[in-house]
């Protein structure tokens, strides 16, 4: 079971350590005062990567090779020279996703950014290359921004059986996969629908707003998506999505986590649908299904149940490799841990800034 979790927040990076059952305390801080948009703990060499959103000074990337004791700024993905003849050539605005390559690809990293470029590094982030095949795909040019001015890639799911097989999720750009490490791409998303589009366009796969895409480690053809207007599940790759209609809680939300060993078990952080975005009745809950979305448990023990208006962003929910420990961070600075698969939760000992991402490692 994990004993360390990181919270990337609007005001820095916070490392929490488990000090006892349900007792998680701050062990270290970094980048205090600076927004941290994403964190990666590389399981292959234990390096830490922190993506910063410095606003006026741009998006930056730092790496630590000593467990977070010290950090070095390294290269950030760059759009230098990309579409230089365009009326408004692109520039990096946010590092929104960071994932390691395969277990045998030490040093290989993937980054998803706003605007919607996918980048690959083969040298632990010392340099990055834009995946041109996706960037230049005419269907990619149909993407549009959701909460941000530009679209972005927020989910990168490497297939543990073959690291050349990746699936990605973009807002608003649907779900895509590659079987050749990004040389060619296939647009998935059949079965999804977008309520916000004109009716005749609602099933257009390239503009689906998949808020978050996750893949089951033990059954990598099985995916879940928390979509802008609902929950979807696929069991044969990133097509043939089946919409789930929960009766116990709102279908809107950003975050989803899937059990690493059981593709039918997933967790969600629901909120009243899109124009409101707060927990129904001011009660923070986690919805869990164990039967592929046929039914849900609405889990409340240990979570605030009176006048709580925490929203959980798309990277604000994580599960450890055991499948038992979950972490959830909110826009109101709440951080809760569960050590029993979501049945009960305990609040970490801290009042945090707004949480952008939580990650075990």
């Amino acid at each position: 079971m994990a004993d360390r979790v990181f919270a990337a927040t609007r005001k820095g990076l916070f490392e929490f350590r488990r000090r006892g059952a349900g007792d998680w305390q701050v062990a270290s801080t970094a980048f205090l005062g600076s927004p941290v948009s994403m964190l990666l703990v590389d399981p292959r060499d234990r390096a830490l990567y922190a993506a910063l959103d410095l606003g006026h000074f741009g998006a930056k990337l730092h790496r630590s090779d000593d467990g977070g004791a010290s950090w070095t700024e390294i290269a950030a993905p760059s759009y230098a020279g990309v579409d230089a003849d365009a009326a408004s050539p692109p520039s990096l605005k946010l590092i929104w996703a960071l994932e390691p390559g395969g277990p045998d690809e030490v040093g290989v990293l993937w980054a998803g950014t706003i605007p919607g470029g996918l980048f690959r590094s083969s040298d632990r982030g010392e340099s990055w290359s834009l995946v041109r095949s996706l960037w230049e795909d005419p269907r990619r040019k149909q993407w549009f921004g959701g909460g941000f001015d530009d679209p972005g890639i927020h989910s990168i799911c490497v297939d543990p059986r073959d690291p050349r097989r990746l699936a990605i999720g973009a807002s608003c750009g649907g779900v895509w996969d590659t079987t050749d490490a990004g040389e060619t791409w296939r647009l998935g998303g059949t079965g999804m629908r977008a309520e916000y589009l004109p009716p005749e366009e609602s099933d257009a796969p390239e503009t689906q707003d998949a808020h978050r895409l996750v893949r089951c480690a033990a059954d990598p053809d099985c995916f879940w998506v928390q979509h802008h207007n609902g929950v979807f599940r696929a069991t044969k790759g990133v097509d043939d999505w089946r919409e789930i209609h929960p009766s116990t809680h709102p279908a809107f939300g950003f975050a989803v986590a899937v059990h690493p060993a059981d593709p039918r078990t997933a967790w969600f952080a629901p909120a009243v649908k899109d124009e409101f975005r707060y927990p129904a009745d001011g009660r923070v809950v986690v919805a869990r299904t164990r039967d592929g979305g046929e039914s849900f448990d609405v889990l409340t023990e240990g979570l605030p149940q009176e006048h709580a208006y925490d929203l959980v962003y798309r990277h604000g929910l994580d599960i450890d490799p055991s499948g038992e420990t979950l972490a959830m961070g909110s826009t109101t600075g709440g951080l809760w841990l569960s050590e029993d698969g979501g049945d009960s939760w305990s609040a970490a000992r801290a009042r945090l800034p707004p949480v952008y991402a939580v990650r075990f490692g």
Partner: protein
Amino acid sequence: MATISFTPHLRQVGPTRPTACCGATLGDALRALEPDYPLLRGYLLDDQGRLRRHIAVFVDGVMRPRESVLGLALAETSDVYIFQALSGG
């Protein structure tokens, strides 16, 4: 040589004191600083080499248009001050 002062918010990546810089233009002067301050450029300019949106440049006491300031000719006596807007919470 023109003298450039940077906001203290850039002290991790740029000069901490007013610095004399070679260069006919502000863009040239910033390039001349790169060997000593390799990260500085990425904090001031975006991926396409444009001055970032919330960076302000004063030359001889006058704020200059962002779109053209990098090409602005500098005099030997020019005083340049580079800082950023602060906002939010």
